[in-house]
């Protein structure tokens, strides 16, 4: 099964190189290497980080609605990146962009995990996530309003909805190591998450270090989505949808989902980004919308469906 997923992802990545910004024209070398390759790589990296962190958070928090976007982690990551970017820190020292995203995501994840540690009930966690998201969005708007560049405020849609267009390769290279590190950390948590699905006390009796597992989940999520959000903004719903799409094939055990989740997340984001790029060909749009618009339009009804299914 996982082989088919990997094959699908490889095909999508290859096709992505041949779909342009509102055109199907074959790219020349420059467009291929400087525009479409970074865009495809960024989609792969960001999508895998989002998909995997969604699977890990749903397992660790035992909540089918957990998602780095819904819980506000990508929001706080975007906030950190905005502060580093618009005040010239990232221009003076490029890694500051990634560091800002990482720091923001770390703060968001630490807050949520500490909150969940006290009262791990589903609704209260989601409520805390709503609060964190709202604060992050408000502070982001405030930061952009106060930013010294007159164009800043108009760019709020990018940070709230996310986008993969026209990111230079060096930013992708900057984000890649931390995303891959986060993915590696999260992939190592399979056994702990399986034990956690039986409840924290049972997990402890099985010799699983519960606190350590939850901390690693927070740190791994911060790495997996923090620098991605710093480069591509807060793309929502990928982390929420991916585990639900995978469960019919891989079963309910959280650990079984982990190897497939980054592949599915990357495939989903790449597919969404290709649709967005082609949208101006069929719809009366002057430019391709940010990819987060599409993931939100498709993901939000999905959220409603999950919430309904959970009703007694």
């Amino acid at each position, binding site marked *: 099964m996982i082989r088919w997923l990997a094959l699908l992802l490889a095909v999508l990545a290859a096709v992505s190189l041949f779909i*342009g910004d509102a055109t199907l024209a074959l790219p*020349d070398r420059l467009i291929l290497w400087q*525009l479409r390759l970074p865009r495809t790589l960024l989609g792969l990296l960001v999508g895998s980080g989002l998909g995997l962190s969604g699977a890990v958070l749903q397992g660790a928090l035992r909540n089918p609605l957990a998602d780095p976007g819904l819980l506000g982690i990508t929001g706080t990551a975007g906030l950190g990146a905005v502060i580093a970017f*618009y005040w010239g820190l990232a221009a003076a020292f490029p890694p500051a962009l990634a560091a800002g995203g990482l720091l923001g995501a770390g703060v968001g994840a630490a807050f949520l995990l500490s909150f969940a540690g006290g009262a791990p009930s589903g609704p209260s966690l989601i409520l805390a996530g709503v609060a964190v998201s709202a604060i992050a969005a408000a502070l982001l708007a405030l930061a952009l309003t106060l930013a010294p*560049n007159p*164009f800043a405020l108009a760019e709020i849609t*990018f940070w709230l909805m996310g986008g993969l267009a026209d990111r230079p390769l060096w930013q992708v290279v900057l984000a890649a190591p931390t995303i891959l590190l986060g993915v590696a950390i999260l992939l190592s948590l399979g056994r702990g998450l399986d034990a956690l699905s039986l409840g924290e006390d049972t997990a402890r009796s099985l010799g699983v270090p519960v606190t350590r597992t939850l901390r690693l989940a927070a740190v791994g999520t911060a790495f997996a989505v923090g620098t991605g959000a710093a480069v591509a903004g807060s793309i929502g719903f990928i982390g929420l949808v991916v585990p639900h799409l995978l469960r019919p094939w891989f079963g309910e055990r959280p650990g079984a989902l982990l190897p497939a989740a980054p592949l599915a997340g990357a495939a989903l984001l790449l597919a969404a980004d290709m649709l967005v790029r082609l949208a101006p060909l069929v719809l009366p749009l*002057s430019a391709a919308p940010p990819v987060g618009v599409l993931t939100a339009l498709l993901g939000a009804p999905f959220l409603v469906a999950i919430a309904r299914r959970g009703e007694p």
Partner: protein
Amino acid sequence: MNLAFLRAHAAERVVSLNLCTDQMLVLLAPEKIAALSPLARDPALSFVAPQAEHLPVVRASAEAVLRLHPDLILAAPYGAQTTLALLQQERVPLLRIALPQDFAGIRQMTRLLASALDVPQRGEALLAAMDAELAALPRPDHALHALVWEPRGLTAGPGTLMDAVLDAAGMSNASDGRNMSLEALLRHPPDLLVVPATPAYPSLATTLLDHPALAALRRLTIPPALTICAGPFSAQAAALLAR
């Protein structure tokens, strides 16, 4: 406002509420300035920033403007509408200047303002310098295909000031007036990419102009102070391009 009335009225305390009229006022009649708009002092935007540093500025609020007891207010078609309506109720003479989009329009606007400020000979001197600068520009045999590309992929199409400036510099305009994405730009690269100088603090819109994929294109950076407003100094923008 009636021009004959303005001339007879001989304004001595003039307030300008728009960056474009600020620059004309500084060039034509600095001794009659009661106040300029604050943007006039911004070296990134204003051609007359060094002079404006020592001149008074005022925000476009009716109260602050009335306190200066102006006998003429200069404004552009846009901005500060409610303030201007209030000032007109107070019967302060108001002259609204349409912003020209070509050199013929610049001549017309300069003469109108010079006449209203009762300094016609200074207007003619500015225009003579402008025409001399335009006449000295080389006319290349082969017109370069140039694209004025601004943050967010905006381009300067036919009928804009930059179109007239490109034409004066002996170049053809590669824009049809529509936005151009980075990929569309690279699919049909112009001979010359004209971009505004980037501001001190970054934004996504301005960093796009520095995307590494554009490195191979011949590019010319032009200070926005020369291109935001039309004026006799627009000839300097053309000279910068033609060089």
